[in-house]
């Protein structure tokens, strides 16, 4: 029931559209049931000579219209009037069918649109950490195929339930007054057909699943073969692959065939039962009609009604199983929507950030007792550059992530211009702190749009300026379409260093007072790295800058160096201070000496070897 509640919630805003769609279905069904009544009167009382039947709630209307049009004497000479009424009935039924289709499409599509937008929006506001840990494939699956399942159910199946109920209601109200016996005969097999349909569709679910899973295995083999074509060829395993694929191909073929065979059983048995129902009505009806108990028109009306009833009854089994699927999908979507999101605007929103930073006894952990950052304290003045050095997993990224509140520390305080960052709204922080991630993500837009991602209204001049600072202007110019070159599948593939530089350009274009480079110059060569940093320093409002890097020159030029190990700051100071201390920083610097040693050793060895080695000539 909880799931139905979820479904009901999703339908908010479109419920009335559904109600009128279902009412339209009801109207269409009513008109469809009225059709045989007109035929009945025409055959029995206009063409034939029988008096019009009086029992039945529609009969007074029919009699009124009959008399209004002039009674039998007029009507039998202008039979076309009956035909016109039949056509008009169909036309108005068609109008209802059309509106039902239109309204239910509008309702289900706007629900689908709402779900898509809501999920997308919700995902974006989920905390940073959620996305670090997220299983992308599963999320995309939920956003696409689960939404599609719900949409399919809402657009096709939901109204079907309404149809079946109306169908039964009208069937009984039209049939019973004509003949109770015939009604009983007409409905005698319906429960069995219904139960058979439901049972079948529940059973056939496993066959559907088996076939789907087999298809999945087939695609996996195919996918792995195609993407691993080098391995296949290099090991000359074509025959092996062909056999492997054939095995899956046969399996999928057989399981699908098995499924179709099951459907063949279903349709033949269910058609057989339905046709038996029709025979029963026709033969018994003929007998009663021949005996004068019912009229020919009544017999024809009953045979029409039975035909109309059987199809929705058989569909209902399927609707019920599809409903099960849709409810599962709704739950999976709701799981995403239940994840708590970040509040971007809670806290101080009007503050001018200068860039003075203080960390005081800051600790951070995911699980208690397992500290990622421990008791970190340091101070940075506006405009200074801080370099951070440390092994993988020492907490460098987490440390800088505390500033724009991608993470919130549990102990201690992080202050910007003397204000605890937790008191400032995330929006303000992130708008004022530019952070370039280690593996930047470029969107599939033009390079220009990628650079002005955060400041949509940036002018071309500013874009060029940012690109020049990031040393990527000339690269972009060298592409055929320049700044209008698309990135991604349909455009150019950028190298790691080019991507990093575009990401830098899009970050600095904002002129943020605080900049963070999370190892984001690693794929850029040393000279370009230095050039970018030099240009940043020359800017008018020099930003307070954090750089996570292993490059010696980058470290040496910083105003302050933090050496991080296992979440603790083990060393802190300027290059000159640290170079004289025993520690990690000094050891990293010593590598340069070892290189010189290594090369001079090589030289000695080289001299020796050259003297007695003749085999090194290349042909």
């Amino acid at each position, binding site marked *: 029931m909880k799931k139905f509640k979820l479904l009901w919630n999703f339908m908010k805003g479109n419920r009335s559209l559904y109600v009128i769609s279902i009412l339209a279905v009801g109207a269409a069904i009513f008109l469809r049931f009225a059709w045989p009544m007109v035929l009945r009167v*025409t055959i029995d009382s206009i*063409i034939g000579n029988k008096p019009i039947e009086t029992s039945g709630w529609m009969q007074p209307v029919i009699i009124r219209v009959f008399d209004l049009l002039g009674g039998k004497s007029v009507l*039998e000479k202008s039979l076309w009037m*009956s*035909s016109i009424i*039949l056509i008009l*009935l169909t*036309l108005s*039924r*068609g109008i209802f*069918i*059309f509106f*039902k289709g239109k309204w239910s*499409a509008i309702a289900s*599509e706007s629900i*689908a649109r709402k779900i898509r937008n809501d999920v*997308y929006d919700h995902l*974006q506001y989920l905390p*940073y950490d959620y*996305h670090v840990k997220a299983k*992308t494939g599963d999320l*995309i699956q939920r956003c*696409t195929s689960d939404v599609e399942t719900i949409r399919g159910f809402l*657009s096709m199946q939901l109204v079907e339930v309404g149809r079946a109920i109306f169908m039964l209601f009208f069937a009984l109200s039209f049939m019973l007054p004509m003949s109770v016996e015939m009604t009983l005969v007409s409905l005698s097999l319906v429960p069995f057909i219904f139960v058979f349909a439901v049972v079948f569709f529940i059973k056939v679910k496993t066959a559907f699943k088996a076939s789907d899973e087999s298809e999945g295995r*087939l695609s996996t083999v*195919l996918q792995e073969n*195609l*993407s*691993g074509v080098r391995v296949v060829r*290099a*090991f*000359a395993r*074509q025959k092996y692959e*062909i056999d492997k694929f*054939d095995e899956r*191909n046969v399996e999928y*073929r057989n399981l699908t065939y098995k499924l179709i*065979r099951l459907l063949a059983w279903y*349709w*033949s048995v269910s*058609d*057989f039962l339905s046709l038996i129902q029709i*025979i029963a009505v*026709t033969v018994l009806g003929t007998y009663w009609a*021949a005996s004068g108990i019912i009229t*020919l028109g009544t017999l*024809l009306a009953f*045979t029409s009604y039975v035909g109309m009833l059987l199809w929705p009854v058989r569909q209902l089994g399927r609707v019920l199983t599809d409903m099960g699927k849709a409810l599962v999908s709704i739950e999976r979507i709701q799981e995403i929507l239940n994840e708590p999101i970040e509040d971007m605007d809670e806290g101080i929103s009007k503050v001018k950030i200068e860039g003075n930073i203080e960390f005081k006894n800051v600790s951070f952990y995911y699980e208690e007792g397992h500290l990622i950052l421990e008791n970190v304290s340091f101070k940075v003045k506006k405009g200074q550059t801080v370099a951070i050095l440390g092994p993988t997993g020492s907490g460098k990224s987490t440390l800088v992530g505390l500033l724009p509140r991608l993470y919130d520390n549990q102990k201690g305080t992080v202050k910007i211009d003397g204000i605890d960052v937790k008191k400032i709204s995330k929006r303000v922080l*992130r708008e004022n702190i530019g952070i370039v*991630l280690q593996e930047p993500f470029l969107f599939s837009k033009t390079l220009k749009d990628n650079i002005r*991602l*955060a400041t949509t209204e940036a002018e071309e001049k500013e874009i060029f300026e940012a690109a020049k600072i990031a040393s990527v202007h000339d690269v972009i110019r060298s592409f055929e379409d320049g700044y209008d070159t698309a990135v991604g599948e349909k455009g150019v593939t950028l190298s790691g260093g080019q991507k990093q530089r575009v990401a830098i350009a*899009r970050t600095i274009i904002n002129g943020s007072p605080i900049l963070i480079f999370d190892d984001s110059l690693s794929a850029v060569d040393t000279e370009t790295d230095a050039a970018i940093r030099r240009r940043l320093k020359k800017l008018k409002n020099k930003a307070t800058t954090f750089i996570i890097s292993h490059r*010696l020159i980058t470290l040496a030029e910083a105003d302050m160096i933090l050496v991080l190990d296992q979440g603790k700051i083990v060393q802190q100071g300027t290059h000159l201070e640290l170079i004289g201390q025993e520690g*990690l920083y000094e050891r*990293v610097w010593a*590598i340069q000496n070892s290189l010189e040693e290594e*090369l001079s050793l*090589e030289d000695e060895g080289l001299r020796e*070897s050259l003297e007695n080695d003749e085999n090194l000539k290349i042909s």
Partner: protein
Amino acid sequence: MHSAFEEKKYSKKFDLVLWKKLLKFCIPYKKKMILLGLFMLALAGVDVLFPLMSRYAIDNYVIPGNTDGILWYGLVFLGLVAIQALNIFFFIDIAGKIETHLTYDIRKKGFLHLQELSFNYYDKTPVGWLMARMTSDSQRLGSFISWGLVDMVWGGSLMILIAVIMLILNLKLALITLTVVPVLVVMSIYFQKLILKAYRKVRKTNSKITGAFNEGITGAKTTKTLVRESENLKEFQVHTSQMYRSSVRAAILSSLYLPAILTLGSIGTGLALWFGGEGVMAGIVTYGTMVLFISYSVQFFEPLREMARVFAELQNAQASAERIFSMIDEVPQIKDNSQVTCEFGSIMKMKQENWPDIEGRITFDNVTFSYKEGENILENFQLDIKAGETIALVGETGSGKSTLVNLACRFYEPNEGSIKIDGIDYRERSMLWLHSNLGYVLQTPHLFSGSIKENIAYGRLDASNEEIITAAKLVDAHGFIKKMKNGYESEVGEGGAKLSTGEKQLISFARAILTDPRIFVLDEATSSVDTETEQLIQKAIHTVLEGRTSFIIAHRLSTIRSADRILVIKNGKITEHGNHKELIKQKGYYYNLYTNQFMDEQKSIVLNA
């Protein structure tokens, strides 16, 4: 090398040649298809009989008020119903069989051909495109042929039968009732085409939404740092609103079609009632006949709708067929000539007994090569590699290192000149022979779903358990494999997803060494793994290269340093060559590369100590 792949536009006209090709796939099912046709004919026949049965009942029992023999009537009716149920069972069964088997055949043929196509095809064709041909397109063709046949035979014969019976029973009434048919046919085909087109647009928009979700989710971290959430949503809403519009449009079109065809059809029914009724009153037409005409006029429209749908789908099916055949008809760029195939065997039937032993000497003799005409990557290239020698290739990404490897492995062939293995042009030997003597480790290791054991055994299918374990031990993979819950039987997951990159690399070494190849090609990984695994991998590399002719696209210093010769490749040319010491002396590209690399490696050692 990778040119942007462009989907060519497909013609809209009926393509006879194409359908003839397709017909070849149907030959094995000729008998089944004829049988299916017969069942559909029978189905239509009985469908036509039901209203005739009602006519009989009306004219012989109801109107004269006679009940004699009605039991017999019921029994005959029952017989017809039983026959119809059997018809239904068999037609679904046979059509299903044809559909699944045809799809199977198309896939099989496609896969077989894909195993023969050369790398030039793979380089220019995205995997996703190939996947779509092998899955949805072949599926669509299979179901179009079988169920299209069902609908065409059933629909066609049902409409013809109805028309004929009507014409026989009452020519004038039949002609009057059938006047609406031409309009219906034209309208149906027109509508079905519109509907199909509208739904195609829906599918296109849908794939855009999938793409947007993909980007939104993978780019979420970036979005956060740039505070771009609301902008992104705005852009996303453009897609969802587009989806809303095109879906509603498609739905409206299809909900317009049914009422239109129903109303038009009811004109036919009205005509039957009007003129039939007058006939009854004049005593020319029986009640039964009039009712029959009314029933037929209603019954006429379902087959019409189905046939219109088949016609509309024809275009889609043809596009699928064109795409599949463009793949199947592609001629492999590199293949053994018939003489070679005759002597050394083919993919399906290798003649290993005729394969000569291999020493491992590789000679590039005056090789000129280009991926694209006019853009030579190599020109008059000379290189002689002795058996057992290790060659390291260094240079920037895209410099042409992999071209050399591709040529040596005969994934591509030289445009001019020749490549000789043990002094004989490799085109005079079979590709399979060369590849069977080849060990190949890719930069990003590719594993197949299945157990670790199966993945190692990919190197030699008949390897015993002991041999597999020995190979794993040689490359120090045994340790981590043993630690896993199911040891060698552990599943690696799709593409090896359950293993770490380092573990995958070790497995791919074990797999290569099991082949005991004479020639080894290694594209060294650049991705970093933890120090311990890194050391294992380094050790594995040295073990594997021992005594084999090897080509290494190298990134790690120890690998490069220990090579017999180092080639520095820049823009497809060898700019520096020699051993480590010589190249250091030159103080050129290699010198820079080496010193930078040295610093990086040392730093990571110091930092992670």
